[in-house]
């Protein structure tokens, strides 16, 4: 028996395969072909980084598949100092507001607390988790 979060302990929670449990359907945001996938409302343009929702949760109009950019700004970030599932501390997490898109949770390419508003780019995924790294804005 491990004392690590989600490892070796079957519980009422579904820890998922990385936590030693059975596989579960993946509900995380998807990165594909250089875009974050999701849906957007056909009426109010509400963006969501999920699929399968029955209607726009804001105005109830139809939603359609959408591709969001990989750039955005940090809304908040933290460094987790305890092991969680397959993650070993320290690891960084941030809420990122995708440009003209949804707010998503992403892992940082290296642990650290980023200033609110720091520009970041989704550079890939790590075991299905979105990974972002800070970008330097180019002078135009």
């Amino acid at each position, binding site marked *: 028996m491990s004392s690590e979060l989600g490892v070796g302990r079957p519980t009422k929670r579904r820890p998922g395969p990385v936590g030693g449990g059975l596989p579960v359907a993946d509900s995380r945001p998807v990165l594909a072909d250089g875009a974050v996938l999701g849906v957007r409302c056909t009426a109010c343009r509400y963006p969501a980084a999920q699929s399968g929702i029955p209607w726009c949760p804001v105005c109830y109009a139809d939603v359609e598949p959408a591709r969001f950019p990989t750039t955005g700004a940090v809304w908040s970030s*933290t460094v987790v100092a*305890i092991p969680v599932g397959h993650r070993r501390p320290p690891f960084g997490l941030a809420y990122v507001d995708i440009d003209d898109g949804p707010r998503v949770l992403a892992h940082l390419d290296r642990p650290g*607390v980023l200033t609110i508003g720091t520009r970041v780019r989704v550079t890939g995924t790590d075991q299905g988790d979105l990974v972002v790294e800070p970008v330097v804005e180019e002078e135009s």
Partner: protein
Amino acid sequence: MTVQPMVWGVGTSAYGSFPDRRVETLAWDAVSEAVRDADISPGEIDAIIVGSVFGPPGVATRVQRGLGIPGVPMWTVENACASGTSAYHEAVEAVRLGRFGCVLVLGVDQMSTLFSGAIIPEATDPEGAASLPLPGLYALQAQRYLGEFDVAPEQLAAVAVKNKRNGLDNPRAQLRAVAPTVEEVLSSRMIAEPLTFLQCCPTSDGAGALIVGGQRGRAGDVVVEASAMVSGALWDHRSTDVWGFASVTRAAEKAFAQAGRTPADIDLLEVHDAFTIGEILTLEALGFAPRGKGAELAPSGHTARDGAQPVNPSGGLLSRGHPLGATGTAQLAEVVWQLRGLAGPRQVPHHEVGLVETMGGGAAGMDGNACVVTILSVPS
């Protein structure tokens, strides 16, 4: 015509890590104390509402085995940390509308046999699947708050110092050995920046119970002036508040309107301080401080036990512990004892009107799973 709901009696188990105890016995401790406190026969109970998150499934029926009140309507509600208060809210509404005359509310959870540390994230949740633990979820609140306002980590730590000091006088609290200093809180090991170990509630087992009924003219009964329950709303790129904040505000606005009260009328509070940042944000969301100023309430002494508006005189979740489903009922029990003036060394000086708030969260993209705010008072 509606009935004025009253709390007739309260009871709790001890709170702690009791992996060798049967979960039913924790519930029986709480229920038997509440029934005696209400001065009723168990046979007078005509409905049972249970709040529990991690069960085990069927725990309510197993508890029934020892109570001898089978066959009455009974159901279990799950609203994360607000499960116990959600069960209480349903009891209050049922009594108010005349559906039942005497309802047993039970909150119970045994976490020590499930988790050896923080709660394992739920893999079916997008953020749980991405390895966001609950302390991390609150740390993201805290980092946003520290970054947005001129707040120092010492102000977060002051909440832990206050509540853990209060808990020293609570014989049922899980952590009551020592009250740390601000420096000790900040130098305890990091869990998720900026939240250190002593700013996080422990993993706990326990139960709490209430008997809710109508007016019967018995001394010690406490008036339920208002009870409001709201579920979560979308928390997304449009949200300027941290997750959780808006759900507390929605419930608070309903409760204050129902009671015809303002925050200035409240003598004492028990609020959801699973993590230090939670107490600060909750007090702002409830209207006890402007945004960014909630962090001043503990350091200034405003929320101390002898302050103008004591918050978490029981020691809160940070001391008492946090068996999720039991927490709301434990908060309610403390406020009832305080309003009756029977809280012993924890007694606050002014105790006419009390408020309980519990907000449960953890579902990604929502501003909370649910929040309950209730206002109770001494009969006039």
